[in-house]
């Protein structure tokens, strides 16, 4: 027995000498400040999926559960640094961008294998972008991102490990899109146009009834089994191309289980029972779990500032049906008065249990694109707001409600989402505070998922909504550029025909300025110049208040003490997946 053990050690040592960690592997290092330590291999982690994945094909359906699952299975050419959110090499070992910003060359990491053992090459990359991502019929593709100035971006294979992109004109956000997951050509070819299928057929690749062995990526884990409506099981990819700081191959865990649990209370119950290892929480669930932790429960609750996540805002419809309200809401002085009446500190303390901070304007405060606009937020000051309303000529009537010029009472409907822990209390706080200054707010609750479509339909007066922050402002252009598809508070700026020129005549002067900033920013190559442009936009945003930003929530997660190296991840952002670092103690 002993001799066998020695023999084993000898074999391992020799193999270790002969096969050093390939130079093409990516060491994951530099995260000591985040508390990352060397882990050990083995173990299993159970996490939650909020619902069944509708498909296993990432580009077939837009679905947060599919996204949460996909991050374990696939990789992109580039990915985010866990600490700085800057892009760094992933499947591409390095890349170059020509001076004019039109030519991108990606040098792929060699010796990366698909999970079935086949080589990963430039063919896969070109196939993914050419046949899947830019296929306009792919339901979760992104053809729009690769149409620059009305022309398609060209993808070419230079050699087995080199891919070149040619853009019609400079578009610096293109690098962000290189996070998109690369798919195996040898598995998906029959579903593509190149393989003889119709464009729409790509959506039916890899349905959830497929043999799990067919679904392969380059990612840290591969699909092992799926029990419909109950559980997805993933196993470690022993050929993964990342190592830890000490050269040990990642991921540490042998297995990941994704338990399908819809109800948030049931998720917490499963976590408390120890069936689940990690859980993302809302601020409302924080106090209960934190007090259990302090009472000695075997888990940690962690809150952290993150870049992702959606800061709520209050929007007034510049084009409200009632012309008097539309005129008022378009007036900057009205929105300034309303900003003074937003009690941010109370919302942060009461609604988020303190787990939120003052918001940025279109950019998360920890982003490198952030410009500090906090001084523009002002202080909560109801008397000041009342004075500002007086100056607008909105006199208080006999019943304590201010009157519009026409003599009608100053009241508006505030639409909010009922199925959430944050919207109802925020709406109530606003309603109560505004009542004190003679503004009558009628609350209208709807399902959260219909908030945006209600906004886009223009059928509302005021609305509470949140848009997710992204690492590059360009990714949120349709929201913040006047005339953009999601610029819902001022719909008259929309182009008459989709894709046409926006309605400049409807824009206020500052909106035109913001529009031009976005146009220039989208084609400027130099990072400092882009930063200066987006700084200017953030200031214009903070001064002119197209919407009133309320707060930026923090991320809250809980993890059982038996696991180490837990970094919070929202779970649905391609290119930000710290799970390979998690290990079982």
């Amino acid at each position, binding site marked *: 027995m002993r001799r066998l053990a020695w023999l084993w050690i000898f074999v391992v040592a020799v193999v270790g000498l002969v096969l050093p960690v390939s130079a093409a592997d990516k060491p994951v290092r530099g995260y000591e400040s985040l508390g990352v330590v060397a882990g050990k291999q083995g173990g299993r982690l159970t996490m939650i999926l909020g619902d069944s994945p509708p498909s296993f094909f990432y580009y077939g359906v837009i679905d947060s559960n599919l996204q949460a699952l996909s991050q374990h299975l696939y990789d992109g050419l580039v990915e985010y640094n866990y600490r700085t959110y800057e892009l760094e090499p992933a499947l591409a070992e390095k890349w170059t961008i020509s001076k004019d910003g039109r030519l991108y060359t990606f040098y792929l990491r060699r010796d990366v294998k698909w999970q079935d053992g086949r080589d990963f090459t430039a063919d896969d990359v070109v196939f993914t972008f050419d046949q899947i991502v830019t296929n306009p019929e792919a339901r979760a593709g992104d053809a729009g991102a690769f149409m620059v100035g009305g022309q398609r971006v060209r993808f070419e294979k230079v050699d087995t490990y080199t891919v070149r992109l040619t853009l019609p004109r400079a578009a610096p956000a293109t690098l962000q899109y290189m996070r998109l997951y690369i798919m195996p050509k040898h598995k998906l070819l029959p579903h593509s146009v190149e393989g003889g299928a119709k464009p729409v057929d790509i959506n039916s690749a890899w349905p959830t*009834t497929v043999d799990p062995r067919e679904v392969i990526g380059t990612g840290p884990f591969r699909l092992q089994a799926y029990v419909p409506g109950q*559980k997805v099981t993933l196993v470690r990819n022993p050929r993964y191309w990342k190592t830890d700081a000490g050269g040990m191959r990642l991921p540490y865990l042998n297995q990941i289980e994704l338990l399908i649990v819809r109800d948030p209370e049931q998720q917490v119950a499963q976590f408390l029972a120890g069936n689940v290892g990690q859980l993302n929480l809302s601020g409302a669930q924080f106090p209960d779990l934190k007090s259990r932790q302090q009472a000695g429960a075997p888990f940690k609750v962690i809150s952290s500032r993150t870049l992702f996540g959606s800061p709520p805002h209050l929007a007034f419809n510049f084009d409200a049906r009632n012309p008097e309200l539309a005129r008022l809401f378009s007036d900057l002085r009205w929105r300034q008065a309303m900003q003074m009446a937003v009690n941010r500190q109370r919302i942060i303390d009461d609604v988020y249990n303190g787990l939120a901070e003052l918001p940025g304007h279109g950019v998360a405060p920890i982003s490198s694109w952030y410009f500090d606009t906090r001084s523009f937020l002002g202080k909560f000051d109801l008397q000041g707001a009342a004075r500002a309303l007086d100056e607008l000529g909105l006199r208080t009537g006999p019943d304590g409600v201010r009157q519009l010029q026409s003599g009608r009472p100053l009241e508006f409907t505030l639409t909010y989402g009922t199925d959430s822990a944050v919207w109802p209390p925020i709406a109530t706080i606003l309603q109560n505070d505004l009542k004190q200054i003679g503004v009558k707010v009628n609350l209208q609750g*709807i399902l959260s998922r219909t908030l945006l479509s209600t906004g886009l339909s223009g059928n509302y007066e005021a609305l509470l909504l949140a848009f997710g922050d992204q690492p590059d402002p360009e990714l949120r252009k349709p929201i913040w550029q006047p005339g953009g598809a999601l610029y819902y508070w001022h719909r008259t700026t929309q182009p008459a025909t989709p894709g046409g020129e926006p309605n400049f005549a409807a824009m206020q002067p500052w909106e035109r300025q913001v529009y031009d900033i976005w146009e220039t920013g989208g084609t400027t190559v130099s990072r400092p110049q882009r930063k200066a442009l987006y700084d200017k936009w953030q200031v214009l945003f903070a001064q002119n208040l197209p919407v009133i930003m309320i707060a930026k929530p923090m991320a809250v997660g809980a993890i059982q003490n038996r696991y180490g190296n837990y970094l919070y991840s929202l779970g649905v952002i391609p290119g930000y997946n710290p799970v390979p670092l998690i290990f079982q103690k």
Partner: protein
Amino acid sequence: MLWFVARRVLLMVPALLAISALVFAVIQLQPGGFLTQYLEDPRFSPQTVETIKRQFGLDQPPHIQYLRWIQGIVTRGDFGYSFLNGRPVGSLIWERLGWTVFLAVLTIACTWLIAIPLGIYTALRPRGTAATIVNLVSYLGQAMPDFLLALLLIALVLSRGGANVGGLFSPDYIGAPWNWARLRDMVAHLWIPIAAISLEGVAGLMRQMRAQLLDVLGADYVRTARAKGAPERTVVWKHAVRNAINPLISLAGLSLPTLISSTILVSIVLNLPTIGPFLYDSLLNKDQYVVTTLLLFSSLLLMVGNLLADLALAWMDPRIRYQ
């Protein structure tokens, strides 16, 4: 009799058609659409919206969508396509039907096996201590929503350090091959949903049975039976219970559609892999063919249940004749 069944089955066709049209119309009235949930995704351009609408036939007027759907059912047995899951509706329902039927049969059996004897017992001894306690519990059972009871049971299990707080299995046993350990694990999980779903039914059914039997026990023919010297057992079981149970059989027919709809909330809070939450998600997402198919299925179950109840009545009660 055969003619009666045939006529009833034939009548179901226009009824189902009317129901499907009505349900489809109501879903069209629901604000928002299947695509609204995606609007914020950075990938979701207006062009994508148009493309997907075209792919799913949502660019057609509603009546065309409806007629195409009906045509698919009649000609190909195709119940349409789930937008959300990108798969035919039929296979999605089939996937979830097993556990749904299993749970429903178990809870319905439990409900009847407990409720009928309890109802008879409390009717025979209406003023005993045991009957008073049973009555009290049944009041509570009727007053408390099933999902609340489920949540309370979860809290109870958690506070006692248990791990069987939802679902049908521990994570380890999901999808594992059957063996004794897995069966034990399932039983350890199963009692919570069975208790939560059954209690309300037991309470209701027991009170019905009790009221019916009390009624019948006061009837003249029961007094006659006693007067002519029939033994008490014959009086109760042959004369009274058999007459008292008739309305309950009609009630049983009505309970078939609960297979789909009645356990939605319990299934969500207890994370059961049944059709209920699937219907709920489809409603929220306006996944129209899933919703219409499920509601159609539910009405079909109702009609079949009624028919079966009528047949059972004819069999139980010699006075009932179908010509």
